[in-house]
């Protein structure tokens, strides 16, 4: 996964602005796609990552903030750069709290925008990679039986075999069998590794 895989999505209701942004991004070597409205983008976005969304704040029908909320609600992790014609600090703060990477005032210098795009795309790649690890962890954990999963959770918090046998009301011997199966299924060699996998799997967003 690298920057060549990234797609820059541009959503702006002003045709000229939209076309000029795409032209600039393409001139800087990015793959860019433009949409005339937030609704248009939401309808046609297929969940491709990595990439970044350049979103105009003030648009008729659906503003940029609204698009962000819908994306967040859908668990889409496409990082957003907001472009606003009217510098609005409270709106910027709110957008950043909701996960926006940048909030730029239009018109911004081309390098400012392109720097922001580069930064955001790298963030997106990292996010995508992290996301891949989470998915892998979940896949591995899904191979465990229910009892093995219970044993794994006890191991993750540092319980010894005896404590596990008492908690789960099973014999020490049975615990030893489950422990062995669990470690081998997860391809781990220590209880610490089990704990890391469990934590990854619990990361939201995937």
């Amino acid at each position, binding site marked *: 996964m690298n920057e060549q895989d990234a797609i820059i999505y541009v959503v702006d209701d002003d045709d000229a602005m939209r076309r000029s942004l795409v032209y600039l991004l393409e001139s800087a*070597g990015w793959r860019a796609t433009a949409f005339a409205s937030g609704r248009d983008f939401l309808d046609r976005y297929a969940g491709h990552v990595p990439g970044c969304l350049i979103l105009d704040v003030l648009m008729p029908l659906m503003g940029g903030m609204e698009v962000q909320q819908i994306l967040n609600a859908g668990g889409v992790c496409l990082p957003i750069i907001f472009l606003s014609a009217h510098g609005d600090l409270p709106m910027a703060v709110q957008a950043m709290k909701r996960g926006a990477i940048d909030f730029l005032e239009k018109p911004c210098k081309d390098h400012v925008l392109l720097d922001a795009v580069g930064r955001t795309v790298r963030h997106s790649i990292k996010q995508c990679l992290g996301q891949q690890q989470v998915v892998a962890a979940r896949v591995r954990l899904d191979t465990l039986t229910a009892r093995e999963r219970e044993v794994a959770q006890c191991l993750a918090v540092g319980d010894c075999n005896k404590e596990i046998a008492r908690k789960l009301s099973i014999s020490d011997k049975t615990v030893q069998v489950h422990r062995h199966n669990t470690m081998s299924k997860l391809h781990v060699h220590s209880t610490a590794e089990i704990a890391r996998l469990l934590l990854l799997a619990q990361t939201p967003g995937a």
Partner: protein
Amino acid sequence: MCLASAMHRLLPLLVCWALLHGPVVAASPETVRVAVLADKGIESAEEEWAGVFDWLNRRIVGRKFVLVGLDHPQLQQAVHEHRVDFVLTNGGNYSELGYSEGVTRIATLDSPFALSPTLAVGSAIVARADSGIIELSQLKGKHLLAASPDAFCCYQIAARELVLAGIEPERDLGRLEFTGFPIQKIALAVQAGKADAGIVRTCLVEQMIERGEIKPAALRVLSPLPTPGFPCQTSSRLYPDWAFAVLKETPPELARQVAIALLEMPRTAQGYRWSIPAQYGIVDELFRDLKLGHYANLQQKTLEDMLRRYRLELAVVASLFVFWLIHSIRVEYLVARRTRELQNMQAEKQRMTEAMRDRQSALDHAGRLAILGGMASAIAHELKQPLAAIGNFARGMDRRIAAGRLEPVPLREGCNEIVLQSERADATIEKIRSFARKPVSIVQSVNLAGLVKEAADLFGVAHPEVRIDWNDADNDGPALVEADPLQIQQVTFNLLNNAFDAQKAAGNPKTPIKVTLERIDRGYEVSVHDKGNGLKDDDIVRLFEPFFTTKADGLGLGLALSKGIIESHGGRLSLAREVPGVCASFWLPAETPHE
């Protein structure tokens, strides 16, 4: 004088009587002056009363009784100044003097014609028997003759009866004519038809008939009173006869002597003599009724009494009058002042109207600038977009060239875009400039629909986020009005601006603003409906006032200017509440088709 005629006949007898007895001569006789009422002249009086004087002069030794013949006022004067000692006068005059000068009667004449000395004298009011006048009340408006206002028997007595019959002599008679003496001429004048009626003393008519001076039954005594035993017809009640009276200052002894002498005077052949003094009270009543003599000031007294008696009411009336007067003056003053104020106000209004007219175009201009000012950020946005786009294209091209990516298609695309966006910016600037330019009002026939649509488009340009629902579907054909297109667009722009601000304030700037054009009455109405928070009643009224605004950053000029513009076009601008929001409308009269 009523007895004048009788005395006349009595006189020779007295003279004879005097001659028989001879004069009683006093050594140095002291003069006793007797005032005698002599209406008919001194000679006549001397002739009439000579017998009485002779008698007195003979009976009372050492005195010389002198007759002083006087008319009414003279007699009054003489008594008042004590120039006489006794008075011989009629009942009326005596009664008057008795009251005013304190004279006292010592004897009353006793006439054979009288029922008694007390019931001796009366008035007969006579009219021609063929006149149809029978009652005193019929004398209203008639011509009446009398001897003199002072005459007792021949006016005053009769006057009382007239008053009691409802006729005020001075007021109700057609004519009241005083002929003077002798009274015989009154009877003759009435008989001759020279007057409707006349006042004479009682018994005169009978005596004249007897003497053949008038025809029997030619005259009628009006309203004759029943007086049993009285030989003559009378229109009045009867009064005491002449009185012989003494002044207060006259020595009582002399008065006593005279009284005795008079009472001792023998009855004459005609039957006259002196009797004990009669009661003259009835004369008093007469004077009271007529408000004569000492009652002459009755009228005045009564007025004073009234004033005293009704002083409270009069005070109230007077206060009311004074209040009314003050009120009237105040009202006059207020009216004058208000009139002046009104005139001033009108002048002021006139001045203001003229000033307004002068400043109208300036204000329109100022208003447009104010609107532009309010739109500054929107305008900036509108210009920033193409400029930003130009920047992006140029930088993009620069990056391609720098990176050695010189494919002509994308580079030319960039150039074309830059040209396009510069033209767009230029167009925007031109629109704003023409809007801000001070216009010359040019009224022309324009299609209102097109005008409003254009204004809405312009507004859309300035506010890209605004959506305007334009609906004139009901109109077929152009909505022609005579108007200044720029001014009407300004109004439309203004209303749209208000609608947009209202929706922004309500947090729904993107709700479409509905704009409609309808044919109403003989004109067209453009309505702008917003879905804002609406207006309070108070604000709706005040919104047309210059510098009144509900917006945080508004100037408060827009609606005032718009209203002025629409009204100068003969139209009307109105605001109405809707749920939710407000409907702002202006109506313009349709163009009257040119023949």
